[in-house]
């Protein structure tokens, strides 16, 4: 491991991704990238009595799925790193009660997934562990109830409000050959530009995202065009626009290779305001959409940011603003295929595309 610039770490022995899985809600499965997700839960209750229990069940099912896909057992894992939005992070630590493995709880609001991946990367590259699971989850009703008004209460949402994604996403990272590798991590600082409206998380988080992006480019000496895809976690339509404009003003131009997980996950007809948010948003997009694309070579280099609004409902009532944070990691394809990344249907689809691309390239050379 090596320090680059001020806030970036370069992994000298890049940690490898062995497995990636996701479980989502109904609405998410009907979105534009719905086909990529491994499993769908039946409804908000997920066959449990309460929403919190539903999220805990979804999370523990995710862990089983991660191990299954990579044909690993619980004993092969040295550490679990996770967090979520519920108080005391119950969805994560209650879900691993039966896991015979050390657990590290981390909280970065919706940046938790990327934070967990970065920490796991450090532990693997440092040689302290061989294999870890990083995961997180969020649940629309459970989150809504904790942070806002009851679900069935009829207040009108502004068009810039986002919808918390129901979904759990996770990855198994390892020191043995995997399908995708972790190259760098840029840890973010807490940024607050005075946004106080709890319905407007995109505006609160955009300055943090822009700050971490700028720092990453400065630390690595790269510019945005270096990446095939730059993805922010859950800024939504509004936060995405603001991030672009904030960077534009400093002379950093984000082109067509920039997108946001919150914008990707729903389509415009799903009545979700400015898009998705929540820990699960970037986690399921990373696990089921970005990693398979990288493994099959459709993307070579990806910069993904987890963006978290460190909102607290009590302090919000006391007139406080919303501090925000963003962590970034860079991912590269390794050229190897592993079974654990992507679901079968998607693996076939992505692999087909590669064959087609190869044949076209051959024909091109022949002509």
């Amino acid at each position, binding site marked *: 491991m090596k320090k680059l610039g001020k806030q970036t770490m370069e992994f000298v022995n890049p940690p490898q991704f062995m497995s990636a899985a996701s479980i989502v809600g109904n609405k998410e499965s009907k979105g534009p990238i719905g086909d990529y997700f491994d499993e769908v839960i039946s409804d908000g209750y997920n066959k449990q009595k309460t929403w919190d229990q539903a999220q805990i069940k979804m999370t523990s099912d995710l862990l089983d799925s991660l191990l299954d896909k990579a044909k690993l057992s619980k004993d092969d894992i040295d550490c679990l790193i996770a967090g979520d939005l519920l108080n005391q992070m119950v969805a994560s630590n209650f879900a691993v009660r039966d896991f015979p493995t050390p657990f590290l709880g981390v909280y970065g609001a919706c940046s938790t997934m990327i934070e967990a991946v970065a920490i796991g990367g450090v532990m693997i590259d440092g040689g302290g562990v061989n294999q870890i699971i990083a995961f997180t989850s969020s649940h629309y009703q459970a989150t809504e109830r904790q942070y806002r008004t009851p679900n069935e209460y009829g207040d009108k949402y502004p068009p810039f409000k986002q919808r918390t994604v129901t979904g759990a996403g996770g990855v198994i990272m390892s020191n043995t050959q995997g399908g995708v590798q972790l190259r760098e991590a840029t840890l973010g600082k807490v940024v607050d530009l005075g946004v106080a409206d709890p319905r407007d998380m995109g505006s609160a988080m955009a300055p943090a995202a822009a700050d971490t992006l700028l720092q990453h480019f400065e630390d690595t000496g790269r510019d945005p065009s270096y990446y095939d895809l730059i993805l922010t976690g859950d800024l939504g*339509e509004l936060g995405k626009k603001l991030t672009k404009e*904030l960077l534009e003003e400093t002379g950093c131009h984000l082109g067509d290779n920039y997108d946001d997980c919150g914008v990707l996950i729903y389509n415009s007809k799903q009545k979700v305001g400015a898009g998705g948010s929540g820990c699960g948003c970037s986690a399921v997009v990373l696990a089921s959409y970005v990693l398979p694309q990288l493994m099959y070579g459709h993307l070579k280099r990806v910069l993904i940011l987890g963006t978290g609004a460190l909102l607290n409902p009590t302090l919000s009532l006391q007139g406080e603003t919303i501090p925000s944070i963003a962590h970034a990691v860079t991912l590269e394809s390794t050229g190897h295929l592993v079974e654990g990344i992507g679901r079968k249907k998607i693996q076939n689809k992505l692999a087909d595309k590669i064959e087609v691309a190869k044949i076209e390239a051959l024909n091109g050379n022949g002509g």
Partner: protein
Amino acid sequence: MGKIDKTQEEYQKLIKKHQPQGSPIRNFFAAYLVGGLICVFGQFVLNTLQGAGLSMADASAYNTIILLFIGGLLTGLGVYDEIAQFAGAGSIVPITGFANAIVSPAMEYRQDGYILGLGANIYSIAGPVLTYGMLTAFLIGVIKLLIF
């Protein structure tokens, strides 16, 4: 590349520029339409009850109960919050909105048990309305006592 160099005021201006706002005129008409329809329905029920031979006082009481029931039922069926996305204040202000404000926390906190969950939180939305409704009534009462 530089740093993000913005004051809070400058950033607020930037947000205003990009933040999509619903049309106030559309909101006004949606609220008027739905709120008006609820009132027309209430009037219809009142007239029907009076037509059936109830006194004005009895008919009003039954009318209130019927409207509260419908508001509660639509909340339970998961429809009321959908209506509110269109109607805004049009579905909050009438008495059906009050039913929604009581029934929605009741549904939400039932998960945490009937006593400390539902019982403690059922007024979490309507509580302020009740508190300041009573305070206002008290103040008006004092004013009436002093002036008349």
